[in-house]
């Protein structure tokens, strides 16, 4: 994936620290987006791009404006101000046949049969009745629900309904896949299925936007991310760039003895014979190792790593915010 621009502070990358320009025309372009609900400003001057073929992580705590941004991008909300384009145009239903959208609020026509609903959405997305039926039956076989094709959706379990909704989302082989909290309510089996599908879409060249709190998935799948806080962009760029931006160096240490107090690091995690040391700005890993050895610490393992996105998330949103997002 091509390197991309990065910013921090204030959310307006036009006036922030733009590092590099995007090499291709973005599939999604948001510029100066502002959203008010009555007197309340939910998003203020948000700008970012999502490039064709990349997997983009849209991160933020509860109420940070992620879903609002996606809804405004897809024409469900009317923005107060700003440009929100997909493929160079404001979203309209013509693009619907190239979009796969799994919204945060999940639901389908519960009183109808599984196959009828899948074929209906397939038809709306431009598939022929035969193609929609064939895809649906094949997909149901894949997710072990082929015996449920003719039963009503409300007779299925929550997890089974999630699988059906995922099938509806991808049945048109979407060019742009937007997944809002995709793992919400998913059990590990469905989560695995979802991850497989995202990877398949990536291989097929689709652009994927993932709105999530799940940092492991972001680290594993995403090429670039944006961190949203209180309606503004807190950080924006590749994962490496964001980790670097937050001074992201940690030393993982296996040892025996007592860790000395030092200006070069702070102990972020301490277990019996294991510790993680967050290095201070300008600190050098070799100097830290030297200091530990000189202090009599018996070092059995020493590795330097960037800070995890989980740590950065906690730093940005605070411990309470992190707990609430995990709970959600």
């Amino acid at each position: 994936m091509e390197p991309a621009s990065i910013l921090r502070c204030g959310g307006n990358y036009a006036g922030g620290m733009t590092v590099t320009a995007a090499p291709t025309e973005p599939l999604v372009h948001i510029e100066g987006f502002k959203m008010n609900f009555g007197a309340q400003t939910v998003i203020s001057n948000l700008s970012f791009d999502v490039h064709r073929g990349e997997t983009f992580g849209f991160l933020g705590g509860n109420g940070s404006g992620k879903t609002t941004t996606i809804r405004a991008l897809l024409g469900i909300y009317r923005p107060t101000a700003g440009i929100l384009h997909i493929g160079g145009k404001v979203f309209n239903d013509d693009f619907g046949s190239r979009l796969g959208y799994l919204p945060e609020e999940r639901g389908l026509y519960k009183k109808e049969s599984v196959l009828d609903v899948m074929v209906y959405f397939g038809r709306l997305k431009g598939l022929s009745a035969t193609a929609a039926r064939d895809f649906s039956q094949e997909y149901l076989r894949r997710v072990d629900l082929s015996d449920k094709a003719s039963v009503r959706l409300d007779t299925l379990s929550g997890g089974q309904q999630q699988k059906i909704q995922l099938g509806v989302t991808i049945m048109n082989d979407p060019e742009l896949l937007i997944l809002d909290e995709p793992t919400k309510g998913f059990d590990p089996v469905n989560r695995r299925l979802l991850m497989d599908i995202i990877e398949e879409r990536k291989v097929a060249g689709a652009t994927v936007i993932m709105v999530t709190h799940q940092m492991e998935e972001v680290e594993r799948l995403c090429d670039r991310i944006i961190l949203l806080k209180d309606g503004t962009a807190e950080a924006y760029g590749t994962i490496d760039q964001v980790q670097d931006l937050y001074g992201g160096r940690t030393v993982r240490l296996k040892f025996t003895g007592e860790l000395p107090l030092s200006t070069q690091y702070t102990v972020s995690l301490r277990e019996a014979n294991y510790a993680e040391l967050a290095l201070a700005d300008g600190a050098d890993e070799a100097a830290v190792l030297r200091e530990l050895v000189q202090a009599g610490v018996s070092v059995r393992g020493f590795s330097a790593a960037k800070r995890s996105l989980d740590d950065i998330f906690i730093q940005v949103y605070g411990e309470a915010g992190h707990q609430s997002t995990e709970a959600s």
Partner: protein
Amino acid sequence: MARHNLGTVVSFEFTRTVKKRRFWIATLAIPVMLAIVFALVFISNQSTSSSADAQKNDKLNFSYVDASGLVNAQIAAAMGGSPASSESAALTAVKDGKLQALFVYPGDPAIGKIKIYAADQGIFKNGTYDAVAKQLLTVSAQQQVGQPKLTAVLNGTVSTESTTYKNGVEAGGWGTVVPPLLVLVIFYLTVALLANQMISSTLEEKENRVTEMILTTLNPTTLVVGKIISLFMVGVVQMVVFAVPTVVGYALFREQLAFPDFDLSHLSPDPLTMLVSALILLGGFILFTGLLVSIGAVMPTVKEAGTMLGPVMILLFVPLYAVSLIISDPSAPIVRIFTFFPLTAPVTALLRNAFGSLDPVSAWVVIAELLILGALALRLAVHLFRYGSIEYSNKLSLKTVFARKENV
């Protein structure tokens, strides 16, 4: 894409409604009830006919005392009667069960009452005595008149045939009134049958949390129009199902069911009147559906939407309570208000148009008003649906909806 999707929406919405068992239970309940009523009427009429035949052949054994001198002895004898030699003796015979009845005719039947003494046969069968006593006097009187024409006139069995003229041309009378009134019936049935379905259909996306999936796949106008068309088709299916037993009963069992004998050839619909009725129907339907979709888009649940549906329905049909005034005094202020107030206009204008009291200018004003307001209501409905359905469990704030600005 939009046209293709409209067909897909109509097909999906129509099919899923008519596939439901609940729909057919509700729809067939009315014709089944009608069939049961018709069957009861049929059996009852057969029974009445049989007993009438039996009574016709079963002569009454009676005596009579005639102070009027009108009773014809031959006719009385043919009906099973004979003059009583003594009123008291005949009365004793009735009391002893030897004689079925004694009729005592007064000197002047126009003033006095015919006294009947008879063996009790129960409340309903006792009516036979009254009928025979009167029939004997009537037939005897007709015999005395001796002229069938005079008899018919005296009986009031004369009929009239009217020909009226309007603007120098023969007017059609009831033959021209009935067809546009049928349009009113169609409007009434459509509204009555579809109101709840329209509300629940609009709220379905919201209640199922499927709004976002739909709105990113489909233009809301296509969805709303598709729903309206499919519900109209559902209404047509229901009306056909309702009409089947009546049509079958009329075609095959008209006499047994005592249906009035309508001569359909006398119906002469006036093309202009029918055109005006059809346009009022169309405008009224569009306005009505636009309002219902708007209500569905604003309210979070069917239950809450129902509270707003009531006043709309009352306003739509309140003119029916003033139907006699609308027909007899179309220039009355309340009728004029009803004619032009949007919600009461369809029923009032359809009634006035059928009875020929809606002048052309008023007719076109009402049509224009209904079509324009209907189009605006539909546009509002689509707008509210687009921005209201996303407020899944909240009532939509209209202020918020109209405060939102366009994406650039």
